[in-house]
């Protein structure tokens, strides 16, 4: 029995790619089908989520949870111009909680964790295989140079000033190289991966895989 979703999927993929030639009704059909399917999926997931969130209230009798539920409903006031201020309360609470957890996690993992990691890498330069030692040394040098670029408050003068200027310039190049690699990686890496995924999906579907 033919799985009807396979030809539909292939047709949508080809219709999307038709944009490479020019915008056409075929592309617009694929675009709108995708958007409506995505919205439909989000709505279904939302309904399932609501069901789960209400479970402790309706089945387990945890009525205290009615407070966050009511706060959630206050969000809907955003649709009413005169009552929009009411929605600012749940938004403020959500943002506060979100920022608090995020700041804690970021300081711990990104700031302290990465600094400790760098120190550890420094400790591994001596006695490591040449490749590891070189990579670790390069990481430390590049980090220090890049950080020197962000030194705004105090600018060293005199003999150390010229050394600092050199570090500043190299830091600028390191940052540019890193940004270039990141952009290239992201655009080419993700773009090609998605292209390849679509082609293989079509080929696999034609071969009968689900």
């Amino acid at each position, binding site marked *: 029995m033919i799985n009807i979703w396979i030809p539909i999927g292939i047709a949508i993929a080809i219709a999307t790619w038709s944009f490479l030639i020019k915008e056409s009704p075929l592309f617009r059909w694929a675009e709108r089908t995708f958007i409506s399917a995505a919205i439909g999926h989000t709505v279904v997931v939302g309904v399932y989520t609501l069901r*789960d969130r209400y479970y402790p209230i309706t089945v387990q009798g945890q009525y205290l949870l009615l407070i966050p539920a009511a706060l959630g409903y206050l969000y809907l006031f955003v649709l009413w111009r005169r009552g929009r201020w009411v929605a600012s309360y749940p938004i403020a609470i959500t943002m506060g909680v979100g920022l608090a957890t995020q700041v804690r996690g970021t300081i711990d*993992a990104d700031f302290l964790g990465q600094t400790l990691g760098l120190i550890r890498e420094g400790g591994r330069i001596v006695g490591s295989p040449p490749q590891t030692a070189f990579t670790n040394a390069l990481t430390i040098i590049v980090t220090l140079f890049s950080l020197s670029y962000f030194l705004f408050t105090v600018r060293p003068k005199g003999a150390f000033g010229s050394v600092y200027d050199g570090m500043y310039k190299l830091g600028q190049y390191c940052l540019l190289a890193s940004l270039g690699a990141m952009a290239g990686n992201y655009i080419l890496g993700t773009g090609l*991966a998605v292209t390849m*995924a679509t082609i293989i*999906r079509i080929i696999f579907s034609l071969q009968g895989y689900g």
Partner: protein
Amino acid sequence: MKKEEGASVSIWSKAQSVRAEWLWLVTLVLIIVPLAVPPHVPFTVNQSTLRIYEYVKKLPDGSVIVSGGSGQWAFIYETSAAFMAFLTQIKNKDVKLIIFPLSTDSLMFEPWAVKVTGFDKVKEYGKDWVVLNYVPGGADITLPAFMTNIRGLCRTDVYGRPLDELPIFKTVNSYKDITLWVDCGANSIPSLARYVAPYKVPILGFVHSAYYGMFQPYIAAGQVYEMTNGIRGGGEYEKLVGYTPWNLGTVTMDSYQLYSIYILALVIIANIGTQMLKKEEKKQ
């Protein structure tokens, strides 16, 4: 002499006006041809993939693995090749798997991978593996809550069954009961390093190659145990476990290598071209 200079100018200028569509068409050909006629170029197994394989091999009986990330269909072949090899490796081991989706997409993606590898055929749902429902709010909110009280955060599984009724959750409720965390999402590693690593739960990542380099500092800092590198890492993992139902990494490896060379060649040509044009502009 003047004629020759004029000819070289026109080559680099012409190269600039090549339409991007033609370059993409060549990419398509380079992807499709090796898939149709695979040359099976040999490849070696990277130390990172080997470390993951060895780590999973040594997992003790009764281990509880959480697959928590934002697996996406768009990056299916970058991340799922290694994830499916991982599922193939653990499916005959005495381990339990909890799927905790961090995006609405992974709600479908991870169960799909479980189905394709036949993990669901050898393991019993509810006892050996389970799919939790997606919890909105983002990883920054849900992960800290998940680590301290799973039943408090996720009241039911994806099918609406209360967690109290599922045998797997009789012994599992917080980070203390989790042996390993795996991520088949393209970019969930920073969130995991922030909210899972502090609880000393080892993390393995099956990450997209575009992020593999970016996430290396997390390994250096000891926040993530190891990661596989996109399709290539997937192919390597498949080589180690023998065979996975789709062998995604292996079948796509030739295309991957070929178009990588093509992109590298384009980057080199574009850089030379820019320098040549600058030179010519100066001369004029």
